[in-house]
């Protein structure tokens, strides 16, 4: 029973799932926090909708990065666009799982943190509409680490030989 579950394929898919799920959860929480702040500002001044929407979108990228890694995993194991799933050894599956961890974990945490920074940026725009770029930059500083994690996940997957 355990053997049939703990094989290469399942591990690889678990990796894809971790990347997409954790990144997605993080982005959902981050975008949610920023959205609450944005709604508050728009209730005062509906004209700021476009500006605060830009800020709200910023923590959404981690979910996309997670999706991206999940997609690459699926292509790599032949689940998408191939001739059916490859047979993977446990070691191969575990490697793919490991490669999915950076974007999953960092994506989750950084999206939440970025959501808070974006919410603060929304407040900034509420008080000083001309400082939109600075608000965006504060949120983008957080995103750096998600970008780095994405890069690590990608490079690990890319250099894995199956």
């Amino acid at each position, binding site marked *: 029973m355990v053997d049939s579950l703990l094989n290469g394929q399942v591990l690889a898919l678990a990796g894809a799932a971790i990347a997409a799920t954790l990144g997605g959860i993080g982005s959902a929480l981050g975008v949610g926090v920023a959205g609450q702040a944005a709604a508050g500002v728009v209730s005062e001044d509906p004209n700021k909708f476009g500006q605060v929407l830009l800020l709200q979108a910023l923590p959404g990228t981690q979910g996309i990065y997670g999706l*991206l890694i999940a997609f690459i995993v699926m292509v790599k194991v032949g689940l998408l666009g191939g001739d059916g799933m490859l047979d993977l050894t446990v070691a191969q599956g575990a490697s793919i799982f490991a490669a999915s961890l950076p974007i999953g974990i960092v994506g989750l945490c950084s999206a939440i943190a970025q959501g808070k920074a974006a919410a603060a940026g929304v407040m900034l725009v509420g008080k000083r509409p001309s400082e939109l770029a600075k608000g965006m930059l504060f949120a983008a500083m957080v995103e750096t680490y998600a*970008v780095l994690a*994405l*890069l690590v996940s990608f490079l690990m997957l*890319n250099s894995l030989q199956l």
Partner: protein
Amino acid sequence: MAVTDMQKLTVIGLNSSRTPFLHELMRLGVVEINSQEGVVNDEEWMPDIFRTSNSADVSRLEADIARVSVALDAINRYDTGKKPLIHTRKEIKRNVFVDHMNATKTATEMNVDHAVESNKKIADARTEINRLRTVIQGLQPWETLDVPMEMTETAHACLVLGTVNAKTNGAQLQTDVLAALPSAVINEIGADKQQKYFSFICWKDEKDQLYEALRPYGFVSVTLGETKGTPAELIQSYEEQITALEQEIQEEEQKLAALSVAKQDIEYLYDSLCMRRDRAKVVGDMLSTETVFYFDGWMPKWSREKVENLLKKYEFYYNIEEPDPDEEVPILLHNNGVVTAFEGVTSMYSLPARHDIDPTAILAPFYFIFFGLMLSDAAYGIILSVGCAIILKKYKLEGTMYRMFKMFFYCGISTFIWGALFGGWFGDFFTVAARTMFGVDFVINPIWFNPLEEPMKLLIFSLILGGIHIFVGMGVQAYMYIRDGHPLDALFDIGLWYLLLIGLVMFGFGGSLMPSLVPVGKYMAIVGAVGILITGGRKKKGLGKITGGLGSLYGITSYLSDVLSYSRLLALGLATGVVAQVINTLGSLAGGGIVGSIVLIVVFLAGTVFNIAINALGAFVHSCRLQYVEFFGKFYTGGGREFRPFERKTKYVKILEEDVEDGR
């Protein structure tokens, strides 16, 4: 480099010609007038000189502007006409504008009054409707009570209304009350989730006994107020009032919608009032005596002739001088052609201080390259450029908006170039479409290489670009040291770092190009490192001279993290490419045939819009970040104050001069 030279202007003129002079000065729009606040507090100046206080004028005009703005908002809310996507100022010749204002002013002011009145009526009616709805809600439980509400008693009997908790047993209550007062009449009128509603009729002199009997049930008596008629009648009459009010709102809304034909005139009025307000306001910034007025301010050097001509015409006393070396001067950027488009990137961070270099010209090429590299899809680049070009052609944009669209137009070109180099055309859409729809193999080959297959190559390329970017930033700092007469600082703080960093790179990676580079790099790095150790603490005292050098050398970690930060160029480029592939793969899942093709195209269109939007935003933000954090960190401080000339700050019209026609 490209910060406009400013000159200081001091003027003394006659009060009698102040008003026409201000008109013409505003028309020129090149002089910033300093506020004279604080100056008059000097005892020396008092009491003959005073600041002209016309705050009453200003606040009257402000009130007018607020009214016109309320009217415009109200009309816009019900204006069904098509609104342009992007707001632009309408161009109009000055004499046409003046004639038009003279001809329509009275009618327009009446229209404003009407609009404000309608707006108020609508707001009042809404409030009244809300109030009535609340009253109706309170009455609804009593709707079946068929006694007029003004009747609370007859000669001998009295009516008591009230509520008990919804959980109360009604039958038990009735039995208990009847036991105490056999002659009472009890009606359960209604019930809702919280309460049960009762009416009691009893003899007047038994009223106290009734309350006594009801006490165990937690009875709360209710008074329905002074109104006449049964609750049902009242509810009906209130409903009728609401209908009438809604009718009124509709009529007023129609009136407002009908006023939309006069909207343009009202907008003209708004602008004209704003200009009057600004002229009135600026008088408050000047000093006056009985007969003359004084002001000082700043103007760009290139406008000197125009300003002098104006001042000579009015025969005013004036003085133009160069600013003192350490005086704070307002900043106006001046770049030519393509570079102007990128001024927004600089001003979003902070304008350069007076002795800073305007970094726009240096950052523009890097911004261009980085943005394209991060979006890196030829088709997206075409869409971006063409979209911006259409908007620029269709709308007469000005100022920041114009520069932004212009910048994205150039960035689109860069995106196209990088996309073609990396073989990204909507990701791999054409390959997927050819396979799904026609069953053919079709590949657009990249001109250079495909980063999805050789990511390490692009990573190294990105880091090299980053290294160049940082070196240029350090170079600017060195230039500034030398310009300010500190060539040794340039040598110690920049030159030695160049030596160390280049040496390290040659030591580490030079071997693959030419083996002899390795030892050369090693000695360069050692000389650089030792130099930094010795000179890093030169401005400190005592023990600091030694630790300062160590501290400086430790700064090498920041160069490492700075360069690694450019790996985002690769990551974001990959993100665009892979998301595009995800979209195309999803679209192709429905298989071939007509249905499959339709699914592919629908998924493709929706996905592409999403991908461009999210990744262009990412490319914009991260290109900015690389400039602000990694590049500006090396040399730029900013903190300059924007040049704000006294000019026509209009929102709806752009007034054109007709120098030739009326000879001015």
